[in-house]
């Protein structure tokens, strides 16, 4: 099974970024906006049509598409709020 990505984190959960998987422009942009290895990301909400998602990172709000969120490998910060493994996440 794939490692957990930001795409399947439930709304309301906070996770820690492990790695950015992609390449090129999108990866650079994601990192420039502050989603770097070790940063904490809080998933705030999904848009009314289910995509994109809104996250809080480094104290501000950022929106990104689920396709791009899939490039961000994450791990749970606290065991209490731990998220289900890939596939059962928020839709």
């Amino acid at each position, binding site marked *: 099974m794939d490692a957990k990505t930001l795409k399947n984190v439930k709304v309301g959960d906070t996770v820690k970024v492990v790695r950015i998987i992609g390449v090129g422009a999108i990866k650079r942009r994601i990192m420039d906006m502050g989603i770097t290895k070790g940063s904490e990301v809080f998933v705030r909400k999904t848009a009314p*049509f289910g995509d994109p998602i809104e996250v809080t990172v480094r104290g501000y709000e950022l929106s990104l598409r689920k396709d791009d969120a899939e490039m961000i490998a994450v791990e749970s910060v606290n065991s209490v709020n731990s998220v289900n493994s890939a596939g059962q996440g928020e839709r």
Partner: protein
Amino acid sequence: MTIRIALAGNPNSGKTTLFNALTGSNQFVGNWPGVTIAKKEGKLKGAKDVLIVDLPGIYSLSPYSLEEVIARDYLADERPDAILNIIDGTNLERNLFLTTQLVEMGIPVVTAVNMMDAVNKLGNRIDFERLSETLACKALGISALSGEGIVEAAEAAIAAADQPAPTPRHGFSGSVEHTLAHIEEAVLHDLPDNVQRWYAIKLFERDEKIAAKLNVDAATRAHLEEDIRKCETEMDDDSESIITSERYAYIESVIGGCLTTKKKGALTVSDRIDLVVTNRFFALPIFAFVMFVVYFVSVTTVGSYATDWANDGVFGKGWELFGARIPGVPAILGEILTSIDCAQWLQSLILDGIVAGVGAVIGFIPQMLILFFFLAFLESCGYMARIAFIMDRIFRKFGMSGKSFIPILIGSGCGVPGILSSRTIENERDRRMTIMTTTFIPCSAKLPVIALISGALFSGAWWVAPSAYFVGIVAIVCSGVILKKTRLFSGDPAPFVMELPPYRWPAARNVFFSMWERSWSFMKKAGSIILLSTIFVWFASSFGWSNEGFGSVEMPNSLLARVGSAVSWIFAPLGWGEWQPTVAALTGLIAKENVVGTFGILYGFTEVAEDGEEVWAVLQSSFTVVSAYSFLVFNLLCAPCVAAMGAIRREMNSAKWFSVAIAYQCVLAYLVAFCIYQFGKFFTGAGFDIGVAAALAVTAFFLYALFRAPTKSLAERAD
């Protein structure tokens, strides 16, 4: 000697507010060479010899976005004397990320921490002395909105311009520094000392644009590549990620020392607004309401009163001011011209050509001002970003942006402001796609044409008007899907990683500046094109050969009518190959509502009602239901009026893209009308002929274009 200060900062950091406050009305707005991104420069208030250059709002200096490339090329090649870096004090962490890159350019930097009033309100404290110390550049607090500290910031930048740029304090980890030193030694030792570090970091990041610029030969690059690989293996990450992560790690340490935050917990006002505004259930109703208000005020009520006043009053029959009758410009000018015995043709040129042409442009201005006011308001209060957030899912499917919704909505009132409102779309490809397709939606000037056809041939059937909108929407969606797959629109997809800025009450001055700037740029550039085109069409429709030789004639004998007759065979496959409908469609290029009036003139009526009721009987004899619908669809989809084409030319800012857009619209209109006529004919009882076969072929091609696999570069992304 003029001191040049570049103003750099993140979007939403208050950069525009600061620029307006520093320069006042001494602004020159243009474009950066070769692109549609606005370049603003201005003289510092009270200092004739200080020029402020407003760089595009950027988050980083990566090679991947046009704005960032423009900004860094300006800094690296034009070498301004100082950089005034404005950062949002309520979001130091991400804003300082750009600062860490700016201080590496070898240009003196002054950091102005904006929104200090909001920072104080949050109960946060920033230690500026320490911040200046750690960043190796002067840092001070300002409030661009109230003007507090901005003079000091400008003075600090001027003072810094005299000094050599200090060496940046932050370093990277040992093995990165080691590699950077290698790079400097291998390729950069001939460059001035103060730019070596910037280039070394870019080469380490494998920045292709910089490598090409420095002309690094293949052997050296291979050698550098080896060094970079070694470092990457050691750090277990790629070079770009290493640099970015270390920058942020450094910023965390800076902030730890300089920023004291009050315990957070309570939601801010902005958070609370957002809870409602982008709520899963309320978001769409609120969005619909906001759009309704924008449309209602700028297109149907205030905007259309103002436009009617300008068109029918000032440039028409006259208007009333406190009971006094003020004649329209044509009447006043007409009297003057008659009184000085002006030649008939010259009078006609001035009144029917120039005044009508200028009037057509000016008529749009009130509507445009109102619309741009709303757009500026939506942008600066933070809601525009939420519109993109809400609508992205739908519009990205056909190659547009969530923000494409606004141009299309406005386009249903008038295509000109619709096209101009595409300005809010940052991504160039999404913007072009939106500009190309916006005018497919029937604008208010096309309504009389719909009324004419529906009344004359369909005895006013209820479905004709809705079907016109349906055709428009389908044309937009299908064009999006088809064009997205062509080479024109392929290429690396733009990342949709967008900041959702906190809601803020916009500064009135900024809203008005933006409103004026956009309207003025339209008046200047599109005005000249529209004016020339109107004069040309005026000439063609009022001059021609008669028994007395070349001269002023009635429209049926004019050059335009001749051209119409000469080219009318082109439209025979669409079912309306007579010269009258062809000429009517041609005059529609001036303004779509002209189609109705032209039919009136050509069929011998002097004046017709808006829906052309008088010509219905004649139309019934020369059109069939099918050919009439084909005529309608062609006029809905083909190239819009001259004013809208002027707007397209202005916004595309490229002759090539303008031609592509107009050609695409005309070809699509022709093919769709062709298929409608041929299939309609077949299903209403005519036999199968070569026309139907051709229509089948066109349909097959259309379906192929719609469902084929996308061109390569997009397919790669799907992997």
